[in-house]
C-alpha cells in the first residue's frame, strides 16, 4: 500500500479538486460537464492544441525537476524563477554572438552557458547556507529580485534593441532549438525532448548513483548523513547548483525554443509553478512530468473555457485545491483510511 501512496495522493487530489470546482461552475450557472469538455478539447482537441500544451509543459517540467531535486536533497529552492532568468539571460548573451558557429556547437554552448548560470546563481544561496546557515528560502528570494532587476537593466541598456517592450536581439539561427512540429504559426521545439531527458537523468542520478544516495540521505537525515561520511556543507552547495542548473535549463528552453530573444516576461512565474509541480509530482521525476503536463493542459484548456464564457480563473481554483490536498496529504490518507475501515467493519 505505502508504495502506491505517492501515486494515489496526487490522483485523488486532482479528482477531488475537479469535483469541487464542478460545484463552483454550477454555482455560477454553467454546466461543469460542458466546461470540462471544452477544457479537454482546448488542451488536446486538435494538433494545434496539443502543440500548445506541450510547449507550455516543457519548461514546467524543468522548473518542477529543479524544485523537486532540491526537496529530495533537503533544500527548499524557492529561487527557480531567478535561476531561470539568469539562465535565459546568459544564454541570450552567448546565443546572439554565435552567428559564425555551426549548430551543434552553438546549441551546446548556449545550453551549457545557461545551465551554468542557473547553477552558479543557486550555488550562491547553497554556499551561504553551508557556511553561515543563512536560510535558502530567504536568500533565493533575494536573488530572485536581483535577477529580475538585473535582466530588466540588461534588456533596456546593454542588450536593448528596437522600440516598444524592452527586448534583446534574436539569438543566432544556429542557436535556436530545432522545430519538431509546426501547426500554423505554432512551433513545437525540441524543448520537450530536453525536458524528458532531464527527468530521466534525474531519475537515474537519484536512484542509481552514489551521489543520489548521498543527496537523499542528506535530505532525510543530515545527522546520519554526516555520520556516514557525507559532507553536509558540500552536499547543500552541490544540490542547490544542480537544482539551479535545471531551472537555468528551463530558461534556456524558453529562450532557444519559443521566444528566441530575451523578454521581461520570459520566465512569467514558471519558476514558482515549479514548486506546485514538484509537490503534485511528489518530487519524483516521472510524477513531475505528469504534473507539469497537467498544469500545461489546464493553462491551455482554460483559454478555451474563457471563450465559452467561463472564467479561466476556475483553473486557479483547481490548481489551488490540488496543491492544498497534496500538501495536506494526511487529509487524503485519512479519507481513504476511513473508507477502508468501514469496509473492514462491514
Amino acid at each position: 500500500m505505502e508504495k502506491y501512496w505517492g501515486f494515489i495522493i496526487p490522483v485523488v487530489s486532482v479528482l477531488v479538486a475537479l469535483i469541487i470546482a464542478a460545484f463552483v461552475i454550477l454555482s455560477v450557472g454553467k454546466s461543469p460537464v460542458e466546461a470540462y469538455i471544452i477544457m479537454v478539447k482546448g488542451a488536446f482537441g486538435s494538433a494545434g492544441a496539443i502543440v500548445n500544451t506541450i510547449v507550455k509543459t516543457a519548461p514546467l517540467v524543468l522548473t518542477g525537476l529543479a524544485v523537486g531535486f532540491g526537496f529530495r536533497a533537503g533544500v527548499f529552492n524557492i529561487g527557480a524563477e531567478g535561476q531561470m532568468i539568469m539562465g535565459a539571460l546568459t544564454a541570450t548573451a552567448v546565443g546572439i554572438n554565435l552567428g559564425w558557429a555551426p549548430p551543434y556547437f552553438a546549441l551546446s554552448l548556449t545550453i551549457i552557458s545557461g545551465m551554468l548560470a542557473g547553477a552558479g546563481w543557486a550555488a550562491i544561496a547553497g554556499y551561504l547556507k553551508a557556511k553561515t546557515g543563512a536560510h535558502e528560502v530567504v536568500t533565493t528570494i533575494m536573488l530572485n529580485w536581483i535577477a529580475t532587476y538585473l535582466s530588466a537593466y540588461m534588456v533596456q541598456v546593454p542588450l536593448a534593441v528596437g522600440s516598444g517592450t524592452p527586448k534583446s536581439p534574436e539569438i543566432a539561427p544556429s542557436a535556436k532549438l530545432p522545430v519538431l512540429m509546426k501547426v500554423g504559426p505554432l512551433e513545437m521545439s525540441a524543448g520537450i525532448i530536453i525536458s524528458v531527458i532531464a527527468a530521466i537523468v534525474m531519475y537515474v542520478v537519484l536512484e542509481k548513483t552514489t551521489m543520489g544516495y548521498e543527496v537523499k540521505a542528506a535530505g532525510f537525515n543530515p545527522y546520519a548523513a554526516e555520520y556516514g561520511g557525507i559532507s553536509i556543507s558540500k552536499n547543500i552547495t552541490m544540490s542547490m547548483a544542480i537544482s539551479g542548473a535545471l531551472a537555468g535549463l528551463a530558461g534556456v528552453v524558453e529562450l532557444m525554443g519559443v521566444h528566441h530573444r530575451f523578454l521581461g516576461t520570459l520566465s512569467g512565474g514558471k519558476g514558482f509553478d515549479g514548486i506546485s509541480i514538484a509537490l503534485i509530482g511528489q518530487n519524483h521525476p516521472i510524477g513531475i512530468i505528469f504534473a507539469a503536463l497537467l498544469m500545461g493542459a489546464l493553462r491551455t484548456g482554460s483559454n478555451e473555457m474563457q471563450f465559452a464564457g467561463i472564467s479561466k480563473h476556475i483553473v486557479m481554483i483547481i490548481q489551488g485545491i490540488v496543491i492544498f490536498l497534496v500538501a495536506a496529504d494526511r487529509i487524503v490518507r485519512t479519507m481513504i483510511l476511513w473508507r477502508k475501515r468501514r469496509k473492514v467493519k462491514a
Partner: protein
Amino acid sequence: MYEEYAVVMKGIVKRFPGVLANDHVDLFVRKGEIHAVVGENGAGKTTLMNQLYGLLHPDEGDIYIFGNKVIIRGPKDAIKNGIGMVHQHFMLVGNLTVAENVVLGSETTRGGVIFDLREARRKVKELSERYGLHVDVDAKIEDIPVGMQQRVEIIKTLYRGAEILVFDEPTAVLTPQETEELFEVMRRLKAAGKTMIFISHKLNEVMEISDNITVMRLGKVTANLVTRETNPREIARAMVGRDVVLRVEKPPHEPKEVVFEVEDLWVKDNRGLDAVRGVSLKVRAGEIVGIAGVAGNGQSEFVEAITGLRKIERGKVTLLGRDITGLDPRSLRNMRMTHIPEDRHKYGMVLQYPAYYNMILGKHWWEPYSVRGFLNHPAIFEGSKELFEEFDVRPRNVNMLGGNFSGGNQQKIVVAREVSGNPKFTAIAQPTRGLDVGAIEFIHRTILKLRENDVAILLVSMELEEIFSLSDRILVMYEGRIMGEVMPEKTTVEEVGLMMAGKRLEEVRT
C-alpha cells in the same frame, strides 16, 4: 466480566505487511499490580501497547478496561479510559517549563491558551510531592536531565487522571540511580492503587519491580509467570526458546601495538561549555578499553569528537601513527574507523531508507557497493542479506524501511554494519541499549570476536555490568576528566561507583 482486571486484551491480532506482529495475544493485568511484559526484540510488545493507547488498531480481538469492553480509537479515548503512556521518546516541548508541558493539550487549555497556570502549577506540585516525583515545576525541559523529563511524562499522565500507566522501556535511557528513583515512584503509585504495565529487557529489573510477567515471543504469548515463583533464567528461556548465557566468557587475549591514542583532548558541548577537559588514553590492537561514567559527563561529546562529528578544541588524536585530529568522518572511515553511535535514530540510521541502504551507510562509496559512481544494487542486496542472516535481524526483509524495524532490530542493523568490513578501530557507545538478553549475548560475543581479530575497541557504556564483563581496562569519566584506570578483575563495582561520583582513584584507595 473480568471485574478483577484493570486491563484485559483478548485475542489481539495485528498484522503489518509481511509480519504478524501480534498473533492472538492475551494480556491480563490485575488491578493495582505492576505487570511486566518481556520478550525478544520484535516480539510485538510496543505494537501491543500502542493498541492499548489507541495509536494502532487491532485487526482482531477485544479490549476490556476495568471489566468494560472498550474501543480505543485514539489517545484521547485511551485517556478517557484512564490509560496513560510514558513514551520511550518523550513528547515534551523543550523551551516550555515543566508545568506548562504538563497542562499543554489537556482540559485546562483552550485554543492553546493556558488560562489558569497558577492552579496548574499547584496541582503539578501536589502530584509531584504525593508520589515523590521531585520535579522543579518552573524549570525548562531542556535544562533538566533525562530522568526528570521522564518523571514529567509520568506527572502528565497522572494530571490527566490516569489509573493505568504504561511504561515502554523506561529504563533504557536511565542511569542505575535514576532507575532506582523510578522504581521508588512506581512503588508509591502502586500503593496509591494505580495499575502499571512495565516493559523492559533487563530481567533483574523485572524481578525487582513486577508482580506478574507476560512473556512474548514472535508475536505470541509463551508464558505467564508469577514473579515470586520464577527466576531470570526461566524468563530468558521462555523469551528466547533456549538457554541463554547471561554473562559471556572473556577468553584471555594479549593486546598488541597501540592503534589509537588521544592526548589532552578538549571538547565543548552544544552550549559551548567544556564537556571534555584534557582526556588522554591509548587503545591497543585486540584490546577493549571501557569508559564508565554517569550519563552526561562528557562521554558523548568525547566519542563524537574522536569520530569527526564534533569540533576538537585542543589536543591530538592519532590513529595507526597518523595524526587524525579534526579529520572528517569520511576520511576516518577510509582509515577503517567505525562507530556505533549511542543515538541510533539521530546518527545511526536513515529511517526512511530501506534496510539494504542502511547497511551500507558510511561505506557506500566503497567497492563493491559503488562502482564508478553507480550503486551496485545486487552486491548491496547480497551483502545486506548475509548480514541479516549473520546478525539474526528480524524480520529477514532487507526491503523494509529502517523505521519499521523494532528498536532492537534497528540496533542490530547498526552493529552489523559497523563491525563488518575489517575495522581497525571502533568506537562503541551503548551497544546493547534496548536489546533483549539473547541479542545482548550475541552483541557481546561479536565485540569479543572483534577483539580476537585484533581490532582496537573503545567501549562507552552506562551499564557497569557490560563494562566489567567486556573491558580489559576500565577508565572512569567524571565531568569531562578521567578519574582513574582500573582492571576489571582487580577492582569492585563500589570502587568504580565512587570514581563515577567524582572521587579520584588515589582518593578511593587511601
